[in-house]
């Protein structure tokens, strides 16, 4: 029983990390069809933002709070630049965006190595978030509770923005039917840029938060990227709700596999489960425009 509760909690916390990493992707990939392999490096940029802010501010708690919005802006700005310089001309070539952004990721990684050095740097955890809380028989580190809360907050914020702001409504309109939205006078250009800003900004926020539990090094982003993509694939196209469910499910799955076999086999197991899942629910993954197949 305790073990089960523990796994559930672990699943939730792993899932919330996955979700933070995947939420921005779900927007840019799900809603725009852009496969941004540099998303991991945007997360990495968020990590280094936290590091730099902490070097300047000193106090770990204050710097974390400052770094979160700055991380959003840093990630968002990088996303905007990427969108404006490269992706804009590639919207009809999703596979090419994948490769181009992979190249961008390589460059960003090497740039981080040259600027900050290859060794991991240390971002201190604020005093208030150190230690753990005893919950239902297991100890959950406060940092993980913080990340869970942040994930919930981020999802809520994205949902609210999409639902209630004019910009969000435009994003949803373009997602639903790009051509129709354009005839209705919505500039899909600007909406794309806005979507990308928000999606990439979320990567920056994720990066800041992930310094609490992981390392901050030039390769940090990579370790989250593949899992994040799997979340988006399993969650379904452009569905924030799907991403939430998929992240938590994959997190729990990973935890269960890890307990009963090895962590290595757990990774393989998760992959197999996703392929099988695709067999059962492929319709969650693609939408077919029937009027035109071009």
């Amino acid at each position, binding site marked *: 029983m305790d073990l089960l509760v523990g796994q559930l909690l672990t699943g939730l916390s792993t899932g919330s990390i996955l979700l933070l990493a995947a939420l921005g992707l779900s927007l840019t990939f799900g809603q725009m069809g852009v496969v941004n392999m540099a998303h991991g490096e945007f997360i990495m940029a968020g990590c280094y933002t936290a590091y730099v802010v902490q070097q300047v501010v000193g106090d770990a708690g204050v710097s974390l709070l400052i770094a979160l919005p700055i991380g959003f802006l840093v990630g968002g700005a990088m996303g905007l630049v990427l969108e404006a310089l490269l992706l804009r001309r590639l919207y009809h070539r999703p596979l090419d965006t994948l490769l181009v952004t992979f190249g961008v990721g390589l460059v960003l990684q090497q740039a981080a190595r040259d600027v900050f050095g290859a060794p991991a740097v240390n971002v201190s955890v604020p005093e208030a978030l150190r230690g753990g809380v005893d919950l239902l028989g297991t100890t959950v580190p406060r940092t993980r509770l913080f990340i869970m809360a942040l994930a919930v907050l981020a999802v809520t914020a994205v949902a609210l923005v999409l639902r209630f702001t004019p910009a969000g409504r435009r994003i949803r309109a373009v997602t639903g039917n790009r051509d129709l939205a354009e005839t209705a006078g919505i500039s899909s250009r600007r909406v794309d840029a806005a979507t990308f800003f928000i999606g990439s900004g979320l990567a920056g926020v994720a990066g800041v938060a992930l310094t609490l539990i992981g390392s901050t090094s030039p390769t940090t982003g990579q370790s989250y990227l593949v899992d994040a993509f799997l979340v988006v694939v399993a969650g379904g196209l452009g569905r924030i709700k799907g991403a939430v469910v998929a992240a938590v499910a994959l997190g729990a799955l990973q935890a269960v596999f890890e307990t009963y076999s090895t962590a290595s086999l757990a990774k393989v197991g998760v992959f197999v489960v996703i392929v099988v899942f695709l067999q059962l629910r492929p319709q969650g993954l693609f939408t*077919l425009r*029937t*009027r*035109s*197949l*071009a």
Partner: protein
Amino acid sequence: MNIALSCKDIVVEFDGFRAVDGVDLELARGEVHFLIGPNGAGKTTLVDAVTGLAKYTGSVVKDGEELRGRKVHHIARKGIGRTFQTATVFEALTVAQNLDIAAGAGRSPWTLLRRRRHLPPHVRATMERIGLGDRADTPAGALAHGQKQWLEIGMLLVGDADVLLLDEPIAGMGHDERETTGRLLHDIAADRAVAVVEHDMDFMRAFASRVTVLHAGAVLASGSVDEVSGDPRVQEVYLGTAKEPADAATA
């Protein structure tokens, strides 16, 4: 009448919304059968259902065989061909290659793995028939808009489809091209059933052998052009709102 395709009580539901709501439809060989109706009437969705793209309840029978639940390519092999609102041809391939592929669904793996030495005669004949006889080596992507639509129709012909479901085949065409297309449709309908989803009322009046009007997913009226035009309900929901037919055409 030589009935080629018979649809009974077709219902297509998307998330609780009935896009097609109990439609009965018969397509006869020798007729150019127009499906008209305002946007959202369920015309294209009906075509999607028949060709296996959309799930539905009810029954679609072609030459005595039930098609519901069959896969898209199985239905196509049964001789049901369709075109799309935006002409969908293989832009990187030439006209000849497009038609050759369309003619070859039944080819053996061995034939497929060898090179095409010359064009099969009926493919060449069809190429002439759709007016692309001199464009055999032109990449389809370089064709004019209307030519692509003819090519797409040609692809159904070489594939031996005898039920053709054409979704707005004259969208974006000039006057002369419409005339040519209309004559082509009548020509090919001689031994086939042709259904045309269309908004253009002039074109419909000029070339329809039979008209079915859909509204809100259901059949509102069916019959000859005159019968349908005279139907007050049709005038009310559809023709009546379209004083100028050109509006409807571009809607």
